[in-house]
């Protein structure tokens, strides 16, 4: 079940989420889209440290800083047991 949206940086390792919205400039949005990060895409958080994360999107791993992760709003799908 999808809950309300929150910044990607709030997620903890192991959680899965769906991208709801990207709040970024034109060029960055376009770049994220070309990397497969766009509203509707599913991602899972591999590891997280004070807001910076490594996420896995369609089998590819991306590292994002907190600033970047704050721009991506997601809906969490489930929280795996830690």
């Amino acid at each position, binding site marked *: 079940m999808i809950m309300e949206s929150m910044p990607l940086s709030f997620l903890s*390792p192991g959680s899965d989420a769906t991208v709801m919205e990207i709040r970024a400039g*034109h*060029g960055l*949005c*376009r*770049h*994220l*889209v*070309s*990397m*497969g990060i*766009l509203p*509707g*895409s599913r991602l*899972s958080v*591999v*590891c997280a*440290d*004070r807001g*910076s994360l*490594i996420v*896995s*999107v*369609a*089998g*590819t*791993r*991306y*590292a*994002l*800083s*907190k*600033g*970047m992760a704050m*721009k991506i709003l997601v809906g969490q799908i489930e929280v795996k047991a830690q």
Partner: protein
Amino acid sequence: MTKKIRIALAGNPNVGKSTIFNALTGSRQHVGNWPGVTVEKKSGFARLGEYEIEVIDLPGTYSLTAYSVDEVVARDYIIDEKPDVVVHVVDATNFERNLYLTTQLMEFGVPLVIALNMSDMAEKNGTAINRVMMKKFFEIPAVRTVGSKGEGLDELLRTAINEAETSPHHEHAIGYGDRIETLISELVAVLGNDPALSARYPPRWLAIRLLEGDDNAREKIEGSPVRDAALAVLAKSDPEETEAVMADRRYEVITALLPQVCTTCVRTMNSSDLIDRVITNRWLGIPIFLALMWGAFELTFAAATPFMAAIELAMGYCAELVGSGMEPAWLGSFLGDGIIGGMGSILIFIPNIFILLFLLSILEDSGYLARAAFVMDRLMYSIGLPGKSFIPMLIGFGCNVPAIMATRTIEDPKDRLITILINPFMSCGARLPVYVLFAGAFFPANAGTVVFVLYVLGIAVAIGSAWLFRKTILPGKPAPFLMEMPPYRLPTLVTSIMHMWDRGSMYIRKAGGVILFGALIVWGLASLPYGVEYGSAESFAGLIGHVLEPLVAPLGFDWKIAVALLFGFVAKEVVVGSLGVLYGTGDDGGTLSSALLADPHLGPVTAFALMAFVLLYLPCLAALAVIKKETGSWKWTGFSVVYGLVVAYTIAFIIAHVGYFVTGGI
């Protein structure tokens, strides 16, 4: 008769384009396990039957907008040079993500061939891609390749030739829905009224880019007679919204077609996750990085010692041959002091350079260095640098020239300029001989640690400078970090040795070229005017040195070091070569390090100050040339020279005087 064909290799970063390029053309372009190794297009030739095929390796990109310099390079090539075929290299283990670029390449209207690279790994993971279905849906032939083993390359070339020769010029188009398609056709009609424009750019492509609000595409219609008419059509839609709809549509097509062509595109969590959690851990990340680097330097010294001893023995033997009573005496001096003293003193350090480069290659090939960039990002961001600039900094450990070129993947111009300016402080392989010589002579017990400290000093000065630039001349906030993490791979001995050779062989060529040349000039200056005692204060070298000496005397350096530093501007190894000549080590079989130890002007403190000075003082000639090229500005090139000299002088001065005070010696 031979026929000529041009093939461009396009694809996402890190999918093995350069590996395929090397296998096709027999060249040895560097291949790395991180995104953005190829930032400039490279060309080579392949042959198949009667065809001579020019192959162009384009920078890896996620899309062909104009997000960063490397994307512009790739896109301009396809548009301006119109290759006969574009081969889209796809990572078969990660098929879905790659297809977005496919949809963009389709819009150029050039013949396309897909190379499903790394197919062996994909098959091992259980991914099967149906090439017949691919051809049916995308109308693009696909070839199974394994670049690293050379599999499927002939078939790839045959398919590419076939596409170029026989395939009609068809547009593989994605439909964007009625509303946008209407706009596209209106725009295409308008653009068609300017024959020059529509001959140069594929009209549908240009229309799509314009509708997406691409500034670079907008520039292309400036000055065209149809500009106003085109803008009138564009005014009917909101570019941001249109772009979002179009991106959605591309992904819809991908999502709809994916199950047809790849029924088993499985996604699993794997051991990479666990490793990532440990090495990017909040507390462990930076200590692990430092420990690995320190280990690399210690190992470099330990493993290089027997090689160095062997080369030293051989050099001593050669010196003895020419030193013992050769007539005329100047010839003996030329061979002994000039060639063996100058070039030989560099050759001794080749094993060190190679072993360090080998260890760095292992770290890179395994996928670790990309994680190191992520680990360092928080630290970097707080001082005003994007985490991405850490990759060029790490490349700088090998050589600053490719490192400065690698800054092209940094999108923000200010971020990029700062990264370029601090790069010369990253200690390249050419500086290693200086450290090995002085650390080995004056700190025999802790040589590895001393060198490690120098590398850390370089990083610290680079980071400190970035902070300073952000506070003063280049204010602003760095772009947030976003980078693909390559999969972990077990590095193979062969590829790591190849990488080591790719990067290290340059130092051997330099030793026989610019270093030898520099050493001979120094020898000439030390021997002339005719009749002076070799290397004495009355020789030209002595005269130049004594002019410069007052400048460097506050740092504890004498005239010989002043001359060596002057010539070290050409290439930093020349510092060692010049000292080898000036100390005249070739003729008596003694080593340069024993000659340095015997010099009453030198002690551990001065040696350390000198190493720090050599680390920081100037970008070498080649690095300056590339700084000029990449910044396009003499002002910033000059700035990097002056800034480097000031920083080097200040830090060496502090080290020398604090050192004298604390240790009471020189």
